[in-house]
């Protein structure tokens, strides 16, 4: 496959292009509406949730 580039020269990789088809862009568009601090606060909440879920999983085992 011939390589393609973004206008600024970033090379397009056909494998990455395949993965890109499955990226949920609605989530990205929502994130882009937020400030940097709001994005980091959301990340912290996700980290806490992930920790809680792991803790609950350990209790079940």
């Amino acid at each position, binding site marked *: 496959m011939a390589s393609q580039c973004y206008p*600024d020269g970033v090379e397009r990789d056909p494998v990455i292009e395949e993965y890109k088809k499955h990226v949920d862009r609605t989530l990205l*568009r929502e994130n882009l509406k937020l400030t940097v601090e709001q994005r*980091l606060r959301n*990340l912290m909440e996700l980290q806490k949730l992930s920790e809680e879920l792991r803790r609950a999983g350990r209790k079940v085992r």
Partner: protein
Amino acid sequence: MSVDYARFFAALCGGGVEFILVGGTAANVHGSARLTQDVDIVYRRSRENVARLVAALGPFDPYLRGAPPGLPFRWDAETISRGLNFTLQTKLGPVDTLGEITGGGGYDALLAHTLEIGAFGQRIRCLDLRKLIEVKRAAGRPKDLEAVAELEALLDESGG
């Protein structure tokens, strides 16, 4: 353990540490929806800055992440100067302090590829999106393929 970004940035910025935010947290800054569990920074390897880094993180008990307790690990300037990249557990959460990253080099090489962001009342240097894509590609890990795809989608969404 989650990362307390507010206190982490306050500690580093308040201590005058020269650092660049990289990795998954930098991806989140650019709009990524992927979960990362730690915070990665590239710190400047000057003697003065290593001393500032040691002083800034010292109160938060940095220890080698995943290492058994009781190892003779000392968070001091000598340890940092003799090593390069440290994956740490701290009271503020998991922190990776990196002297260099694959495909990007150290602080001075990366500095031209950063932007200044504002968060939690601090001004923070963060790797720009294009360089972040470049270093993720250079890392060449299978798990990064999806991350690179998402970052490139963000580049598309933000007008390339």
